[in-house]
C-alpha cells in the first residue's frame, strides 16, 4: 500500500517532526510494510514543497531509530516494525491524546460507559483491519 504524507505550516510541530510522525503512523497502522520504499528526499521535498534538508533530517532521525534504512543507490526502505518508543515515552505521548478524547466526549455529552463502549467498538474494527492481530 502506498502512504501519502502531508504537512501543515503554522503548526507547533516542526515540519521534520510532522514527517517522522507520519512515517511512524503509516508503519504502525500497516499502510507501510517492511521492505516498502519511501520516496527519495528530493521527490518528497518537491511533493510537499519543503526544503530537502528538512526531509533529509526526518529520514536521518528515522534511520537512527532503526525504522528506515538507506540502501546504496536504491533508496530508502522500511526495515522493521519494532517498537519505536519505550513504554514510558509511549505513555507520555498517549496521555494528552486520551485527555483530548475524553474532553471532547464530555462536550458531546457521553457518559463514561457509553464512551467505553464506543472505544471498544472502534478498537475491534482497528484490530480487524490489521488482520486480527
Amino acid at each position, binding site marked *: 500500500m502506498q502512504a501519502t504524507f502531508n504537512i501543515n505550516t503554522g*503548526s507547533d510541530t516542526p515540519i521534520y517532526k510532522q514527517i517522522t510522525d507520519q512515517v511512524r503512523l503509516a508503519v504502525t497502522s500497516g499502510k507501510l510494510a517492511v521492505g516498502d520504499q519511501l520516496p527519495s528526499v528530493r521527490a518528497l521535498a518537491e511533493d510537499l514543497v519543503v*526544503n530537502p534538508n528538512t526531509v533529509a533530517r526526518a529520514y536521518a532521525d528515522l534511520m537512527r531509530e532503526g525504522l528506515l534504512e538507506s540502501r546504496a543507490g536504491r533508496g530508502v526502505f522500511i526495515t522493521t516494525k519494532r517498537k519505536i518508543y519505550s513504554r514510558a515515552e509511549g505513555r507520555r505521548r498517549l496521555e494528552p491524546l486520551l485527555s483530548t478524547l475524553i474532553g471532547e466526549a464530555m462536550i458531546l455529552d457521553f457518559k463514561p460507559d457509553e464512551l467505553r463502549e464506543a472505544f471498544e467498538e472502534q478498537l475491534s474494527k482497528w484490530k480487524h483491519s490489521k488482520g486480527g492481530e
Partner: protein
Amino acid sequence: MNEKSVIQTHGLTKYFGRKPAVYELNLEVPRGCVFAFLGRNGSGKTTTIRMLMGLVQPTRGAGTILGHDIRSLTPEIRARIGYLTEEHQLYSWMNVKECGEFQAKFHAKWNDKIYRGVVGHFGLKPTATVKDLSRGERAGLCLALTLAPQPELLMLDDPGLGLDPVARRALVESMIFLTRKSDRTIFFSSHHLSDVERVADYIAVFDRSVLRASCPLEKFQESVQQMRLRFPGAPPALPKIPGLLQAIRTENELRVTCVRANGETEKILRGLAPLEMEAVPLGLEDAFISYLGERGEKTFILSELEGQP
C-alpha cells in the same frame, strides 16, 4: 576568507542622519543554504541587502560577499549574484519573450530553459506585454530574469511582497527547485512565515536595526517556549526570569514566554507553587511574534478595564 560562508559582516553599521538603520551587524551566511532574513517593516533589512550589494556605503564596519569586499564589488562579482529588488523594474513596452532575450545579452551563463520554465510556472504567455501583467505575473517575470543567469548566490528582497497565495506557492516551489544545485545559496527577506517555514534552513531576526537572532530555523522555534501556570486564585507576582519575553496574566493563569528556558527557569516557576504547570510548544509565527513583540508583563483582567486595581 572563510570559503564556507558566502556573506560575512563585522560591525556593519549604517546611519541615515543620526538614526541608525543597521547597527553593528555581525552576520554569517553559510554556502549552500536557504537563509531567511526576518524583521518588521523598517527594521533595516533592505538597507542591509543594499549594503551587501554595494549599493549603499556603510558608515562603518566591514563585509564580504562571495569573498569580496562589499565596498569594491566589480561587475564580474555582481554577475555571480542574482539580485531581486522590492520594486520590480521592467520595460513596460516589452513582451515576456523580449524581456528574456534582452536580459540574456548581459549574461554569459543565461539558461533559456530555466527562463521559460519559471515564466511558465507562473502561467505567463511569452507574448504578454509587461504593462498588462498583474503584480504576481510581474514578480514571476522578475524571478525568471533573476534565475536564468544561474547565479551562485540569490539575494531576494521580499520576493513574496504583494503576491497572492498561488503566486507565492509558485515562488516557494521555484526556490525549492533551485536547491537542486547544492552549492547555491538563497538569501531572502520575507514576512510570510509559512513560506519561511517551508524553505529556510537558517533564519536571522532583525529588530529595530539590531540583529537579535541568527540560527537554524528549528533551533529558533525550539528556543522560544511558553509555560502555562494555573493557580487557585490570582497568580503571584512574577520573580525575575532570565530570558523572559512576555508574561500574560489572567484571573488564575500565568502564561510565561521565554527564550532558552532550562531547568533553572522551571525551578523558579515551580517556586510559585502553581496547581498545574505545562509547557506549550509554539509555532514559528507565535515564537516570532513573542520574540519581536512588546516585552514585559501584561495583564488581561476584566476588572482592570473597569478601573479597579
